């Protein structure tokens, strides 16, 4: 994966496969603590203790088309290469939280990349689901929730072209504003 936002998109696909209805993505960038933390939290079906033990194994997967699953192992490798780690908390029937921490200034840390592209791809493909995006830096934080968009939009789906473009612009502007304050 060339950028971490692609890992986030990949892990979110697991949440969708787990029948989540709401997925929260967050990015915490702290220069003062030299940390980059990425999180994916869902309210999907969660994993059993055994699945949780084996999920780091690339030769473990629940899908039936083939016998490998590279999503979690790749994300974990990216974190560990950059002085960080990956943790997974999961409760059967409640959902799963995947958190990856990186040393912000580590030379092997991949760039964060286009998080707005990840969120808009998810909305385009899954207009029936809700997404929360939270971005935090040393100077402040920004949060967007598709449920508050939906309240205004009524029966108009989130993946209407004009709506997705507006959401992309809204996220881009707010994240840029956050970074320019730093």
């Amino acid at each position, binding site marked *: 994966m060339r950028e971490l936002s*692609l890992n986030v998109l990949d892990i979110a696909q697991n949440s969708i496969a787990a029948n989540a209805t709401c997925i929260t993505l967050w990015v915490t960038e702290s220069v003062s603590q030299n940390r980059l933390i990425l999180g994916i939290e869902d309210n999907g079906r969660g994993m059993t203790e055994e699945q949780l033990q084996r999920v780091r194994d690339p030769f473990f997967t629940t899908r039936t088309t*083939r016998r490998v699953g*590279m999503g979690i192992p790749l994300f974990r490798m990216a974190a560990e290469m950059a002085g960080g780690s990956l943790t997974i908390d999961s409760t059967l029937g409640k959902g799963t939280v995947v958190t990856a921490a990186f040393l912000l200034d580590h030379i092997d840390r991949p760039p964060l990349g286009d998080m707005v592209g990840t969120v808009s791809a998810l909305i385009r*493909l899954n207009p029936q689901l809700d997404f929360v995006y939270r971005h935090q830096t040393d100077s402040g934080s920004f949060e967007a929730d598709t449920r508050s968009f939906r309240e*205004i939009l009524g029966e108009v789906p989130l993946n209407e072209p004009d*709506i997705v473009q*507006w959401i992309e612009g*809204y996220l881009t502007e707010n994240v840029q504003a956050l970074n320019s304050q730093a």
Partner: protein
Amino acid sequence: MKSIAELQALREKARANMQVREGSHDGTRVVVGMATCGIAAGARPVLNAFADEVAKRQLKQVAVVQTGCIGMCQFEPIVEVLVPGKEKVTYGKVTPEKVARIVADHLVNGNPVVEYTVANLMK
């Protein structure tokens, strides 16, 4: 700075568009592989390019959707184009630059872009 209030105006416009589109979807589907292999190879910008191009040309009959890994990871990003009554066309190693031509030639004019197909890549 965009404000949430703008969504209200967009809602009215989108509602009008939706009424025009009602019943116009004919089952044409653009299916983008979005498993780990597809994403790593660049499926996200391809997906977003298809959605933008289809919206720009107002191809109201076309739905852009995703699938998992179909087992030809070496040709990702893979995009299948399904037009009702026609044979499925599978494109491989798709880039955002190739998307405009696939939309124009295949979706608008009905001529698959043979040189971008997986069948052609395997030759």
